[in-house]
């Protein structure tokens, strides 16, 4: 059953040096506050998994916490490249970074296989694509019924997955609404799962019967962190802070500017600051 904990406790209990960890969110509901707590706790040698590593992965990579990243699109959506990730890949700063690169279809299938307890995922993918020549984890499997050659990738099985969601109820069930991404699969594929939520409500009696609800017993820890996905968004609570994504491109340009920003905005604060960061972004759906 999920424990209600402080974010500090939840990260400390669930994330260890050397872990394989997913902070999932597909544009929406990205668990920024949880990743910032991991930065403050100075975790290292992490293997990070995510379909769409964006700002917060750029930050963790730039802080030297990451030895490998498994991903399918590493960019600042609509803005450009991830400058800290580039610096690590191109110049090994602050550390060399190993990359395992896939397509979205393969990553989504790999999470699903992880959730399904399968060792690998099969898909009709990577046809003619260069990634299969540079990533030894992209292989082929022959359909035993038709003889068709399909792509195969290993299942994703994180030690721990972090997600952000709109609500938990008092029993510890979690509701995810809007663009649900790959979060359900990421939670069910992981050994442990930590969820930050906008709020805790009494019950889910008014929730649609087909809503995306993760039962309490699939989750290790729940932490209430209003605004915890900023500058991403929480559907129904606050809108995406597009300006912050644009600003990040400048902040991440040089190493010193990046480090100063991290000190002021991550290291020297705690998760309670997130609520104020979204105060001007309310009113959106």
């Amino acid at each position, binding site marked *: 059953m999920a424990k209600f904990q402080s974010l500090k406790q939840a990260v400390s209990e669930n994330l260890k040096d050397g872990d394989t960890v997913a902070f999932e969110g*597909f*544009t*929406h509901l990205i668990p920024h506050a949880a990743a910032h707590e991991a930065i403050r706790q100075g975790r290292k040698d992490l293997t990070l998994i995510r*379909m*769409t590593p964006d700002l917060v992965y750029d930050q963790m990579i730039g802080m030297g916490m990451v030895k490998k990243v498994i*991903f*399918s*699109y*590493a*960019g600042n*959506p*609509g*803005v450009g*490249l*991830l400058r800290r*990730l*580039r610096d690590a*890949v*191109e110049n090994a700063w602050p550390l060399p970074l190993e990359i395992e*690169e896939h*397509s*979205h*279809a393969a990553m*989504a*299938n790999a*999470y*699903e296989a992880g959730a399904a307890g399968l060792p690998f995922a099969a*898909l*009709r*993918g*990577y*046809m*003619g*694509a*260069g*990634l299969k020549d*540079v990533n030894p984890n992209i292989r082929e499997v022959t359909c035993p019924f038709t003889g068709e*050659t399909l792509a195969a990738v290993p299942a994703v099985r994180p030690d721990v997955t972090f997600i952000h969601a709109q609500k938990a109820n008092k029993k510890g069930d979690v509701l995810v609404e*809007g*663009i*649900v*991404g*790959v979060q*359900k*699969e990421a939670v069910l594929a992981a050994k442990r799962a930590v969820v930050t939520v906008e709020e805790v409500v009494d019950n889910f009696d008014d929730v649609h019967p087909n809503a*995306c609800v993760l039962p309490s017993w699939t989750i290790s820890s729940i932490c209430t962190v209003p605004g915890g996905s900023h500058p991403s*968004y929480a*559907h129904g609570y606050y*809108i*995406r*802070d*597009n*300006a912050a*994504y644009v600003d990040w491109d400048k902040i991440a340009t040089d190493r010193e500017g990046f480090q100063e920003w991290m000190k002021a905005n991550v290291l020297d604060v705690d998760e309670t600051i997130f609520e104020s960061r979204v105060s*001007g*972004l309310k009113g*959106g*759906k």
Partner: protein
Amino acid sequence: MAQEFTSDEMMTIAASRALGNDDICFVGIGAPSAACNVARLTHAPDITLIYESGTIGTAPDVLPLSIGDGELCDTAVTTVPVPEMFRYWLQGGRITVGFLGAAQLDKFGNINTTVIGDYHNPKTRLPGGGGAPEIASSSGEIFITMKQTLRGMVDKVDFYTSFGHGTGGTHRQDIGITTKGPTLLVTDLAVWRPDPETKEFVVQSLHPGVTREQVQATCGWTVTFADNLSETAAPTELELTTLRDLKARTKAAHEGEAA
């Protein structure tokens, strides 16, 4: 009544015209997104627009900055999980047109958005393929839109992020892909379609005021022009107004968020 328009506007509008009311279109971010929504707001009101975040049948009032802005979910017929998006809807063969942008493109419609230089020792690390490798193989056909530059339109892409027609001819079928692949390229200067045999992009029409020399000067391969080369129809007033209103709404919305 001729109106002034920019080459960017011409590109978006020419691209929008290729989409039909019955299309089920998988929309790439950036230039494709603008073209798809202009189509929806002009001649193709019932077109189904799908973004890889899982939003199916979306009708955004403003253009999203990312493929997962809340606006896309709010206006969608339904929003599905990302694994379902790629498995049932894309791999399942439901998409008629995949609309992609490109950082680097060659004359056979192969796209690179992964690296400039060697993969293991890159000169520039780009964001990567995202959904594109399978959009390129599973969509019924592929439209591409990009601005022409010597850096962008190259003789040979550094990396095959998304397979177009490979080295041309029947390469696509030879490796077992059954979909059509790139059938249209719209740049800021011209409309291109692949030669039916060689699969090399051939300029079909030049946008108003554009010369052959301009097209060649911003393209890294030797350009072939169709025998019956024509001029792209200039934007209509409706097309221009629709695009400009959409851009203005988008700008206002994104600036409003920053306030």
